């Protein structure tokens, strides 16, 4: 070891130690004092009230018989608890071709306003609703038709929807006595092209006439299902918009011989998924001659599904419903009448492959006429839902059927009308239960607000605000125990477009392809 020099610093070992210390110090300094090296943290998008809301409805349809109809619009007084301090407008108009003169049905003036237009007999124009500024968040439009007599007897309602490109409906029929009509409404300024696919009991239904349906700008087209896909007693209907955007709705009027069986609009079913919830099966009183049928569509592959029922007491799987086989591309119907007798409920479906589903409820007193009610797999309400009161008569009772399938949930139901707000109900739903809330209308007071609001029914709006740990599902139901039999209709509660995410846009050369 001749390399050893007398001086301490000259010793190789000491030098090595110094170098190691230097390296460690430099690396530590760079690590400790260096900039944060984690990926840019996810930015929470800013939430702003939406500034424009546009919806479209198939429009009032007179049934065979005498029809009272109404279009109702409402916009909530507050967004996320804050009253918006801005101007805006909310207008419901008839949808007419560009050259024609459109008619304003309802005009809202301020947040918290609501309005009703009472339709005339024979009216059939589609309607559009457009709100901007402070009235845009939660702007909601619904329509109701109440036919008390004739072959078209029944109560029907639907909620206006923003335009889209993909719709599912489960449950319409095209057999004898099933008068189902698909209404395609195009409020946009360009022609839309639509393909409609039908799934019947035996699989895909050949329906060449339903391909490439052209819907001109600002018009609507009626497609009678018994003409394009006749002879099916239950159908899954898939509406795909190839070019453009529109809204779709299906209404069906059932007759048996000359006896009216009821009428209603089908709500949109959720796109196929492996777990579905159909809320809103009403309490079917004992002794009535009522039926509940569940239809499951497996659009791609054959499915094996399990059906369970959530009642106020809890959930259970009815006998024979634990294994439901659905052929590929086909529809299978499960009769749940026995299982559901007596209780309001929601139906939960879990499947091995994506399916979608709907339910048909027929209410009938043994000696009187009955009415139908259509339900569909729905989305959870994860933000307030807004429903304008669209009763056409004070006899109609407004109910909410709410279900918390997974975990405890709460719902606060707030009513608003004429600048006033009140809490209509507070509901606590334990996990796996369903409850029915009956909403009492405000006491009649001098009418104020919406144009066309000239009847004796006090109109108001409802806001259903979900809370709690689990998802909340629900429908708004209207029913009436008429002298000639029950009348009933419902549509699912959907999350209102109150707030929109405004994300920071950043220019970046590589988007999507690499990295």
């Amino acid at each position, binding site marked *: 070891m001749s390399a050893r020099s007398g001086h301490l610093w000259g010793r190789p070992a000491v030098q090595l130690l110094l170098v190691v210390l230097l390296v460690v110090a430099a690396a530590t300094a760079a690590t400790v004092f260096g900039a944060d090296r984690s990926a840019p943290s996810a930015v929470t998008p800013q939430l702003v009230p939406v500034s424009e809301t546009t919806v479209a409805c198939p429009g009032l349809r007179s049934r065979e018989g005498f029809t009272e109809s109404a279009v109702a619009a409402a916009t909530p007084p507050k967004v996320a608890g804050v009253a918006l301090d801005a101007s805006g407008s909310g207008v419901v108009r008839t949808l007419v071709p560009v050259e024609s003169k459109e008619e304003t049905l309802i005009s809202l003036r301020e947040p918290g306003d609501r309005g009703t237009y009472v339709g005339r007999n024979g009216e059939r124009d589609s309607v559009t609703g457009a709100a901007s500024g402070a009235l845009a968040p939660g702007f909601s439009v619904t329509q109701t038709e109440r036919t008390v007599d004739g072959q078209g007897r029944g109560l029907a309602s639907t909620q206006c929807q923003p335009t889209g490109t993909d719709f599912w409906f489960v449950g319409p029929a095209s057999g004898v006595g099933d008068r189902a009509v698909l209404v395609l409404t195009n409020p946009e*300024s360009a022609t839309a092209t639509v393909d409609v696919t039908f799934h019947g009991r035996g699989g895909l239904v050949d329906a060449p006439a339903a391909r490439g349906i052209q819907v001109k700008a600002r018009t609507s087209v009626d497609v009678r299902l018994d003409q394009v896909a006749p002879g099916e007693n239950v159908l899954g209907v898939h509406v795909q918009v190839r070019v453009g955007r529109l809204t779709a709705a299906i209404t069906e009027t059932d007759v048996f011989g000359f006896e009216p069986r009821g009428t209603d609009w089908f709500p949109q079913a959720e796109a196929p998924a492996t777990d579905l919830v159909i809320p809103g099966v009403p309490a079917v009183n004992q002794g009535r001659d009522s039926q509940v049928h569940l239809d499951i569509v497996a659009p791609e592959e054959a499915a094996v599904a399990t059906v369970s029922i959530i009642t106020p007491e809890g959930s259970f799987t009815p006998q024979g419903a634990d294994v439901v086989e659905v052929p590929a591309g086909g529809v299978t119907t499960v009769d749940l009448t026995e299982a559901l007798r007596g209780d309001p409920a929601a139906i939960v479906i879990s499947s091995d492959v994506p399916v979608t589903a709907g339910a048909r409820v027929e209410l009938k007193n043994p000696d009187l006429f009955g009415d139908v009610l259509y339900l569909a797999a729905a989305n959870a309400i994860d933000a307030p839902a807004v429903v304008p009161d669209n009763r056409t008569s004070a006899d109609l009772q407004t109910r909410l059927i709410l279900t918390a399938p997974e975990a405890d949930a709460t719902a606060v139901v707030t009513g608003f009308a004429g600048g006033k707000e009140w809490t209509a109900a507070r509901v606590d739903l334990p996990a796996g239960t369903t409850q029915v809330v009956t909403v009492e209308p405000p006491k009649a007071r001098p009418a104020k607000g919406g144009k066309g609001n000239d009847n004796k029914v006090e109109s108001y709006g409802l806001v259903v605000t979900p809370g709690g740990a689990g998802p909340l599902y629900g429908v708004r139901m209207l029913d009436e125990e008429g002298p000639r039999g029950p009348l009933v209709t419902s549509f699912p509660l959907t999350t209102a477009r109150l707030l929109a995410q405004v*994300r920071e846009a*950043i220019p970046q050369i*590589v988007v999507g392809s690499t990295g």
Partner: protein
Amino acid sequence: MSRDVPLPETPDDLGVVAVLVAHDGDGFLPRTLSALAALDPAPDAVIAVDTGSADSTAALLAQAGSVNRVVTLPADTGFAAAVHAGVEAAPASSWLWILHDDSAPEPDTLGALLRNAADQPSVAVWGPKVLGWDEPRRLLEVGVSISRAGRRHTGLEPGEQDQGQYDGQRDALAVGSAGLFVRRDLWSDLGGFDRSLPFFREDVDFGWRVNLAGHRVAVATDAVLHHAEAMARGRRTGVLADPHATDRASALYTLLANGRGSTVLLRWLWLLLQTLVRALGNVLAKAPREAAVEMTAVGAVLMRPHRLRVARRARRRWRLVKASSLRSLFPPPGQQVRHSLETLAGSLSVETDVAPSTILESGPTDDDLDAFVGPGTGRLRRWVRRPGVILFTGLAAVQLIAWRGLYRDGVLHGGALLPMPIGASDVWQAYTSAWHPVTMGSNTMAHPSTAVLGLLATLLLGHATWVVPTVLVLGPPVAGLLGYMVTGSFGLSVRLRVWIGAAYALNPVFLAATAQGRWTTVLVGVLLPLAAVAAARAVGLARRPASTRAAATAVLLIAAMVALAPPLIVPVGVLCLALALWVTGLRARLAALSLLLGPVLVLLPWWPVAAADPTVLLLEPGVPWVGDEESAWHAVFLDAGGWWSAPWWFGLGLVVACLAAVLRAQLRRPVRGALVVVGVSLTWALVLEALAVTPDTSAVPVTVWSGSVLVFAVAASLVAIATAVMGSRTRLQRAAFTWRQPVLAVVVLMAAVSPLIWAVTWMGRGATDPLDRGVANPLPAFVRAQSDLPEQIRTLVVQPASGRLAYTVLRSRDAQWGDVETAPSVDQLTSLDRVVSDLASGAGSAPVDELADRAVQYVLAVAPVDPDLEVALDSAPGLLRIANPGESSLWRVEQPTGRVRLLADEERAVLSSEVPGDPGAVAIDVPAADTDRLIELAELADDGWVATASTDTGTRELPTSGASDWAQRFVAGAAPAQVQISVDNPWRRVLVGGQLLIVIALVLIALPGRRRVDEEAV
């Protein structure tokens, strides 16, 4: 060969007359004269011709007893004229024997010639075997010929020794004039040497004429003459300004005067072209004077066809034989190519000072050199067993296995790599262009690495897409081979050098760089060994004096490295300054400084960019990595991070061994030097890793890639370790056994097996991910096709990313390499940011008009499509969903739009513009109108935009309008006009031109010079 030419009757033997031509030959004459005196048999008469010698030649001739008569001529007399004068002064004879003052026959030479002449009367011209003057066994001539290019062809290897291999009588096209032995009657018939050839080639011309006249020319190899070739070798000064040029001119004259008549025009053209090429070669070889002289001398022949016509007419009289029958006397055509190649190989091996061959020859084992210069066919087996060859083959095999996932069609992309432009011309256009068609357009100067890419693409026959696969596949093996070669002079064992090569080629930084598509880093690694050697030569570290040529080479290589990886400027700068302080001698210090200043100068056009946004100095070109990054200390273990990098402990063996090398730093200077390089580069790498950089073109901070800096550390640590290990073994064996031996054994073992682990991991993992080959384009084909139409529409591409919305605007092509660096700055796009944000929010008030203003006709949401985004775009009025290409979603802006629009009040008319090659230029027809209009160009406003309107009344420049907050607008009048819009940046043109000049100058300095030394004298 049938010769039916009637030979003159054998004359009465009138004997031999020797004609000795002398000029300033006192250096050679004494030997020549004594040789003449010693001749047996001797010529009957010796006539000496002195062409005005200024030295003692005249006196020597006068004193010589063997010389019968001296003819004195003026100094400007040519050789041919001198011979003629001598012959005229000579008495009658049967034979003429022509000698130079520097040609000494052996005593028996004349006897041998006469014997042969007697044996074969059909031969009219004889020549001796010509050997060297100072080297009596060196063969100079056994007959001469001329190649098609005019080269004097002897059929001998340079420096070939006479071992009797050519002995025996040989027919030839001609024999040299020194010792030319000719029948006098034939000489008179043919007119002797052509007086138009004052010096050189008169002998070839004469021989050719003799052959064409149907006589034979032969060499009598038993007759021997020693010749100094003083004139041709430039030993005789003062006679000719440039003997080489005169020789060229004479050669061309000979070829054109004697060549076949039918091809003379073609040959003339060919020789002209050849002369131009040779002149260019001379310019490149830094011999402009030679080039000029050759051009003038040769031009004198080629540009005077009249002289040639006279010469050809004179020759026609004697021509009796078809030219084609002489073919066997000329060298075969392939001979020329072979000769050129051999000369080239020779020049590289002997002359070159810096270029790759220096590395080849710098090692102590010369077999490496042989391996790459002219391997003989018989050496193949030995060649493939060379360590360098085995190393390269092994590394290439590893690469080919690792590359297995990428042997398919498609575009190479992924990680930092964007698809390359198609051709070299595209790259050069991007480099010189004043406007880049990236998103909303930008005037940023292209990254300097674009120029390197362009050079490589040009070398690869114009295929820019070949560059990256070539660099990524072959780069590491070549780097390894170079690592093996440059360490040849370090006194390391072959085994250690192979280890260096393997470890360098497989180092974790290269692996990460390859997987991430960072070809710039790999290329830096390839250039580094060359640059290091050149730099060492430049400052005189390589046991040779400092070399300017090496400095120029080093400057070019370092500039290329810094262009590829700008962060290298810091370690290069620090090391150059340290070198400047450390070396001795002013010249070496200046050279060291030039290694820093030179590259700075070469990168001239880029400095304005760096001044505007200094962060570009910290970033390598390519897509920046914005994801999670490991802690900074990983850099110490050569883990540079990014999309993929080898785990940090991969570098452990190397780092520990490098620390162990510190123990030996005192003993070995190279270890210390290498450790300094390691320290500087590691420190800078740590600094880089600790920085968060937000370049102007990025909205979010990006992570710095320190890979190229770490390559410096890797290379230096390999050298340090290998140098430290050298001799340690014996030292440790001799020392007493303590803890040191086992510990060091473990350390050495760890370092030794590291390359093996790296290779196995690399082969197992493969080069893919994120590097990929396939379709990289998000643009659907029909949208791309529509983008090429005259409207020049664009597509907005959006994708949500961690709560933000990343977007880009694509024109007729997808993003490609170079776009990241030339993108407009984020600040210039804030208005577009807002438009995209509002559009995607779904809150309503979708600003679709603003998209149309920017020529955006399509909106593409890239898969996986965010449902909120889809809903928002679906509900945007004015946007129409049209198709779902793949998993993506596409919308069309309903109103028509285009790059150039005419704005008049409410009207917005889209104008069709020509789609020229230049991304900036636009040509449109503006129709007539009642009012003034605005022409809006959907490009970011820039001072460089110029619009020129041509109307019936003339041409004028349109004023710009400042009404838009981002777009370039011009005010067009009401009259119809043809408007040309273009963008120009004169300042950039000056800078790029200056850069080109600097690079050319450096290349000229770096090129090996022309050989000026006498071969025989060496």
